[in-house]
């Protein structure tokens, strides 16, 4: 359920920041960004898009951390430790 797609904010559309243009692999659409009011969105931010709404911001930091972690999976000892550290805290 709930197909959601990461897209990049390329433009904020109105004064009250209700709408923004996002781009997904060269495809653009106007979406509603009211759900990210608190955090605020800016051009360049990545967001998850679902049925024309931005649902959450996508964190590059977290993404890099995940990929780093997985890359180290075969560096065994270290990996075990890290993966355990990745447990939710």
């Amino acid at each position, binding site marked *: 359920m709930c*197909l959601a797609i990461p897209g990049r904010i390329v433009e904020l559309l109105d004064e009250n920041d209700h709408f923004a243009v996002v781009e997904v*692999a*060269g495809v653009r*659409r106007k979406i509603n960004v009211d759900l990210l009011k608190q955090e605020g969105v800016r051009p360049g931010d990545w967001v998850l898009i679902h049925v024309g709404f931005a649902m959450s911001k996508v964190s590059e930091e977290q993404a890099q951390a995940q990929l780093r972690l997985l890359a180290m999976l075969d560096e065994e000892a270290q990996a075990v430790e890290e993966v355990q550290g990745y447990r939710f805290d």
Partner: protein
Amino acid sequence: MAEATVRFRDTCIELAHGAGGKASRRLIEGLFLPLLRNPTLAGLADAAVLELEGLRLALTADSFVVKPIVFPGGSLGELAINGTVNDLAMVGARPLALLATFILEAGLDAGVLETQVKAMAQAAERAGVPVVGGDTKVVEHGKADSLYVTTAGLGLVDPRVDLSPKAVRPGDQVLLSGPIGDHGVTVLLARGELDLEASLRSDTRPVWFLVEALIEKVASGLRWMRDPTRGGVATALNELARDAGVGVVLFEEALPVREEVRGACEILGLDPLHIACEGQFLAVVAKEQGEAALEALRRTPGGEEACLVGEIRAEPVGTVQVLSRYGGSRVVDMLVGDPLPRIC
């Protein structure tokens, strides 16, 4: 005439019956083929081939009802010419002549018609084929959507080729003339209902020039061709797999898909393998001649993006599988129904 067995059991025609996927096949195989059967009937092939005094003549016809009638990179009229030229090309036939019939909606702006006929004239000139006849009917306002065009084509099959699913052998290579899905996604976006924008253009074009290059180079190794229009590459290859009794394997990484097509498909939950192309074709060639075939395509203007996308296997019969780099595989079926966005 012996009473033919109609196996088509759907009670009502839906859009899916014209979408080129499973429902279309059901209608054609369940109703049209049994009732109209005869030795030459083309069935699901692009064009029928007919012997006459030692010549092999190719005949094909398609109706064009695309909405909107003008879209980035093309128009209904242009499509109507290229589509029929390409269906001739797919059986190895040089196009000789086209016919065009028009069903016009009363109230159609004459300028709109003129634009479409001009597009047809230009496309016919580009493809090097004359439009030698046609017909015009006008239906009441509201009984058509602007205009529908039907084109029929006559071609002369190159004596050097003999194309058929039955000629396909395990080990043969599957070539694709260029990136897929441009047309389908362009038209989907041009309808405006989804409010998506991308700088995509339909790939509509005549492919005879590419086919000719292929024939010149590897006529003996050319087994089968198909332009993956409605239903896309997945449907075309599923039909091949069934008709030839082989399995088809595609290499996910090798499939050429433009970024924007990939993006639109991600957003809409669609598979680019089900999206229509109007200026690309699939060719199956003998393995030994695959390299030469690819080179011939790439050397021909418009064929630069041709690539090897898969191969024929003995098994599993009747399926198309996509193999990913990391070892995963999935079966891709024919299109079921019209491609519908998956959203929630």
